[in-house]
């Protein structure tokens, strides 16, 4: 098919090697995926939310003054989280669902869960959670589900580091 095929083939191999060296995946990525798959509940149908933005990394020890925001999008709403540090091990989460919708939010870490209600303004708070790999689940509350002709009742973020 071609002249110089061996050279081209070699170049493609070198290019792949170069990118592997220059931009490897984060060391924790595989672990994050395996944890997410292990905690995957396959019973119920749910909509997986996508991370769209996150003002990222806190550098060094987290202090009470530092916070980060993370947002996820679904087909019909946006979930915003503001995460503040409480000491080094704990977090406070203030959340918003927009457009506002009454839901129940549950955070899962390993086999522990914390829950809160999302109020009529779409707001919720989780005053004290351990930091760590977490997944946020949202379920439409019965009264809201009756009013909104939503196909989907259950939503979840991917697993992420809180």
């Amino acid at each position, binding site marked *: 098919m071609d002249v110089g095929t061996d050279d*081209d083939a070699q170049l493609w191999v070198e290019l792949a090697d*170069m990118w592997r060296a220059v931009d*490897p995946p984060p060391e924790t990525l595989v672990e994050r995926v395996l944890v*997410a798959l292990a905690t995957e509940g396959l019973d119920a149908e749910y909509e997986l939310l*996508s991370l769209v933005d996150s003002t990222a990394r806190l550098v060094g020890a987290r202090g009470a003054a530092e*916070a980060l925001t993370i947002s996820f999008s679904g087909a019909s709403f946006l979930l915003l989280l503001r995460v503040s540090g409480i000491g080094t091990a704990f977090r406070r989460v203030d959340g918003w669902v927009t457009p506002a919708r009454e839901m129940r939010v549950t955070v899962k870490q390993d086999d522990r869960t914390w829950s809160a209600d999302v109020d009529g303004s779409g707001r919720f708070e989780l005053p004290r959670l351990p930091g760590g790999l977490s997944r946020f689940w949202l379920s439409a509350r019965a009264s809201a589900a009756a009013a909104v002709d939503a196909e989907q009742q259950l939503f979840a973020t991917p697993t992420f580091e809180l």
Partner: protein
Amino acid sequence: MGTAQEPPRPSAAWNDAADSFRRWRGGDAAGLDDLVRCLTPVLWHVVRAHGLDAERASDVVQTTWLVLVRRADFITEPQAVAAWLTTTARREAWRVSRAEVRTVAVADEALEADVPPGGSAESVAMLADEQSRLWRGVRRLSERCQRLMRIIAFEDRPDYRRLAAELQMPVGSIGPTRGRCLEKLRTLLGDENREWAANA
């Protein structure tokens, strides 16, 4: 003028993936672990080629695996699982790259500069001479060339129709463009060789 050669099939990874998938579907949970370890790096590179930052790229990779677990019953041919994964990852990466959401800014945040889908200064500094030459050459190519070549370098026969949509090019021009990108890269590398020789 001939078109550029097909890159060598990443066939070892593709075959390993098929084996792992078969084992998993046959009841061996470790098969899924092996599949994840084997193909996560490939998915990472293919997703990063879309220009996503590290956090969003990681999220797309994770989403891709979650979708696999939910849809695995629909993958009837184990040999196709790697292609299915890369296609799903690229579709999701393309979708996410188009979402623009402004979140509430928080004044007290410490922002760490995100690593561009190129690489950190540290990782670039650690490259062997040959690789850093290659890196410098690639960086001088157009954005389109860089993305195209990164996807091709890691995928086994990428879907040209999807690539065309992602890069907003006619399908028929993908092959020739790939050839031109390679040619341009060789020219840039050749230029550097000549400068090197002239200054030696």
